[in-house]
């Protein structure tokens, strides 16, 4: 049996200065798992920040149930946070963890199936009570039988140890100690991987500055976890993951996709001079964008928590009519509700950005699980001929560029733009090379001014981009009326003329089709006959899968699409340049359908709709199967 018994605390060995072996690892995957109330997201988040500051490349995958408080100790209530960090550039949050921290039997049971042989499991053995074992549907304790023989199991009485660490603190209650177990686990894993402690300690001190007892309890628990690693003989190997060396030079920061989406919108607001008005209705996982922007009044941002998704869209459009950068953010079901307003924005030809943080559907689906299955809804989910540009973000950091690009297109072409991100991007984090504001493209609102020659104002006259004037209320000489009724070309007056309707339909389509988007860039290898194509958040898994295949000495090309409407001008040529094309998606083949229809190319799809990101290993396998 691989289980290591922990000696009684009183008999713990003294510090073994230097006696612990240190092994170097190129990359490591750690998963913190516990009950929803165990603070696993916090522990994972703190570990991530320390890891980022240490200089590893990293990617994370938080996973939590939709229920805020599922019954304590139940399988339904298990929450986890996975981090993949490495001394080289990495692309995904990792497939299978090397280390699992399980705070209770349910967390163990829910996560063991995803472990590979030899993985390390650190359990809070105090939580393995008869009652908790029952809740996790264990007949007997897995710590006492041979079911975990394939793993290195480290039994740590975390609850007991935290209790002892804080018992001397004045005012600390048993409950305080209970709630600090996650910091103990964090301290232990931080020791295991030699993470800098100052980052976490500084965070605790700042977070609980006005609650000295809670601060002291958390600091004590964190230090106790670290000291436990150092002084007990339970763990005899520490791991060293050196700072990443193959990443481009620059100033970096650890970010999730929600933060970068917010920053992209903020940067676009400041650079364009357009005040940002974000209206949203709370919905997982898009609410965090509302939360973030609600703290940005210092840069002139106005946020509105609307009465419903429809109102949120209407408010963004009303703000845009008034000359603001109108943005609404939502997730799947909310996109359905906004469709009529997006159609109005298409008819009005006003700038507006709709952020759709995709999650698993249909209907309520799996609100806390990721998917990229709203592409067809974004493209076609409106009545009538209603073309809308679509930009899709590919990594947490790239959400910044995607958000900025969505605003650029919306303002230049006077059109609603749908920005597709997803739950994995919104919640996942990675080091982000911070761009220079001065390097961002200009965004010019170019508000209309009254014709100087006294000529009548023509609200639907178009410029070379096919865009109409943005004439905002308050501008003398430009009073005009717009609406959802079909308009006469150029004058914008109501028109039921069939020929005019055909012309306006064509003009709206041509405007969107003619949007300048960059060519798709191919990561080509001489001799490659297979192109692996992707869009959205699968980029990391595809990059990692392609790299693994290349490490085997096989030839393969890769390209990623960031503009879904219009598609890059060179995409057809790129697709036809390869004998085979593989297109993995976290849906049932939505872009596949579009590209086959658009280019008549026999692309092969790869579909996963399991509410999780694609794995590098399954991409490697899928690519290998496509190679001759």
């Amino acid at each position, binding site marked *: 049996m691989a289980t290591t018994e922990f000696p009684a605390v009183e008999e713990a060995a003294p510090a073994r200065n230097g006696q612990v072996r240190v092994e170097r690892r190129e990359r490591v995957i750690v998963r913190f798992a516990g009950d929803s109330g165990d603070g696993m997201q916090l522990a994972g988040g703190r570990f991530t920040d320390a890891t980022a500051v240490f200089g590893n490349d990293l990617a994370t995958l938080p996973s939590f149930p939709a229920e805020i408080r599922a019954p304590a100790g139940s399988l339904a209530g298990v929450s986890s946070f996975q981090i993949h960090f490495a001394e080289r550039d990495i692309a995904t949050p990792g497939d299978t963890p090397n280390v699992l921290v399980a705070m209770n039997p349910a967390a163990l049971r829910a996560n063991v199936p995803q472990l590979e042989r030899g993985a390390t499991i650190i359990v809070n053995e105090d939580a393995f009570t008869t009652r908790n074992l029952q809740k996790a549907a264990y007949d007997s304790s897995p710590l006492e039988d041979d079911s975990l023989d394939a793993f290195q199991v480290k039994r740590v009485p975390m609850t007991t140890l935290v209790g002892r660490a804080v018992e001397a603190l004045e005012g600390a209650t048993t409950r305080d100690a209970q709630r600090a177990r996650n910091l103990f686990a964090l301290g232990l894993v931080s020791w295991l991987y030699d993470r800098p402690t100052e980052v976490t300690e500084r965070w605790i001190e700042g977070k609980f500055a006005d609650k000295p007892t809670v601060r002291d309890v958390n600091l004590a628990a964190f230090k106790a976890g670290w000291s436990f690693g150092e002084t007990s003989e339970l763990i005899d190997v520490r791991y060293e993951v050196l700072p990443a060396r193959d990443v481009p030079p620059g100033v970096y920061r650890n970010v999730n996709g929600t933060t970068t989406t917010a920053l992209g919108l903020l940067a676009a607001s400041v650079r364009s001079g357009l005040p940002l008005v974000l209206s949203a209705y709370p919905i997982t996982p898009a609410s965090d964008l509302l939360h973030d922007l609600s703290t940005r009044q210092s840069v002139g941002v106005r946020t509105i928590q609307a009465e419903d998704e429809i109102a949120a869209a209407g408010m963004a459009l009303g703000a845009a009519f*008034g000359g603001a950068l109108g943005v609404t953010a939502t997730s799947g079901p909310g996109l359905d509700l906004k469709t009529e307003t997006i159609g109005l924005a298409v008819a009005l030809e006003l700038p507006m950005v709709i952020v759709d943080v995709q999650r698993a559907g249909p209907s309520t689906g799996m609100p806390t699980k990721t998917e990229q299955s709203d592409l067809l809804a974004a493209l076609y989910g409106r009545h009538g001929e209603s073309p809308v540009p679509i930009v899709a973000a590919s990594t947490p950091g790239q959400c910044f560029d995607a958000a900025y690009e969505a605003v650029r297109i919306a303002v230049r072409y006077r059109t609603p733009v749908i920005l597709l991100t997803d739950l994995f991007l919104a919640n996942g984090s990675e080091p982000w090379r911070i761009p220079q504001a001065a390097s961002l493209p200009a965004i010019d609102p170019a508000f209309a001014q009254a014709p100087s020659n006294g000529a009548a104002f023509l609200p639907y006259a178009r410029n070379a981009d096919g865009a109409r004037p943005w004439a905002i209320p308050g501008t003398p000489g430009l009073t005009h009326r717009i609406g959802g009724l079909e308009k006469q070309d150029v004058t914008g007056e109501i028109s039921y003329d069939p020929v005019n309707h055909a012309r306006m339909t064509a003009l709206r389509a041509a405007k969107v089709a003619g949007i300048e988007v960059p060519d798709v860039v191919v990561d080509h290898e001489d001799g490659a006959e297979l192109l692996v194509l992707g869009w959205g958040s699968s980029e990391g898994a595809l990059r990692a899968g392609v790299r693994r295949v290349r490490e085997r000495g096989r030839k393969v090309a890769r390209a990623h699409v960031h503009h879904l409407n219009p598609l890059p001008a060179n995409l057809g040529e790129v697709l036809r340049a390869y004998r085979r094309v593989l297109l993995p998606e976290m849906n049932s083949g939505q872009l596949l359908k579009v590209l086959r229809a658009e280019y008549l190319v026999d692309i092969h799809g790869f579909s996963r709709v399991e509410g999780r990101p694609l794995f590098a290993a399954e991409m490697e396998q899928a690519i290998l199967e496509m190679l001759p």
Partner: protein
Amino acid sequence: MSTAPPLPLTKADFQSDQETRWCPGCGDYSVLAAIQGFMPELGIPPERIVFVTGIGCAGRFAYYMDTYGMHAIHGRAPTIATGLAAARDDLSVWIVSGDGDALSIGANHLIHALRRNVPVKILLFNNRIYGLTKGQASPTSEVGKVTKSTPGGSIDPPLDALSLALGAGATFVARTVDRDKQGLVEVLRAAAEHRGTAFVEVLQDCPVFNDGAFDHLTQKDAAAVNRILLIDGQPIRFGLDHELGVIRDDDGTLAVARVDEVGADRLIVHDATCEDPSLAFALARLGVLGAGPLPLGVFRAVDAPPWGGDLVAELRAARVGLGDEDIDALLHAGDTWTIAG
């Protein structure tokens, strides 16, 4: 910049060049004329006025005003206007809606605009029928109403717009009728002066699908005994010779009584500025839209800070001078580290 008409403005400055396309005899014509005639009083140039409308006959209103205008989608005009008010504090924003638009498909937005006290004026044209879709029952149609969609008579009790508005916390609530130009303009004037949301129900005749619904309020003889004109600070009296009045009955409800029978001292004195909405609500419940005496005028006008206070101005001030260095500061917030080249 020179194209703005110099003040003072006239009615013609607010008339667009669009051909008006309501049915002959539609009450909307008189409302449009009254509003176009009233607008110069505001002293606001047309380019600072915005009309936002929903769907329905009333929705066409935006096209006929030579101001900025948006004919939006069904029920959503309050959301558009709220977004506009969130971005701009220098505009006079008016919503024109109908009974289906405001009380059925868009009722949710109506109550939330009211509870926020968004600085907009909401004019609800209530003809108690769906006109543009050619004659179905509306949420204000009376029980038993025979329409194309209710051939056996409507079984749905009607919604009272004023009760709903008061329940939603509206700070300004008024009711008027299309053919009473003077009453309409007085209500509009009071609405224009109100700094929060002003909600005005305009009872309006649909000569095609619900003709004569408000004849008892507009035909000369009947009007005198059926219009209970509310005047702030005055005892509530009406009738050809002010022989009728409103009293509080022994059970606490309001009732119409003959003044000579109950005595002038028992008449209720109207108080539109009372914080407590109970009297306004009781007045809203007094009378039935379709028959008998009905209170008209300003039910409630309570001054309260409009939505967001001075937030638009504060955010505008916050944006002054923002530039690339501010973006760079935002992007570099928190822990950063440098990888040397």
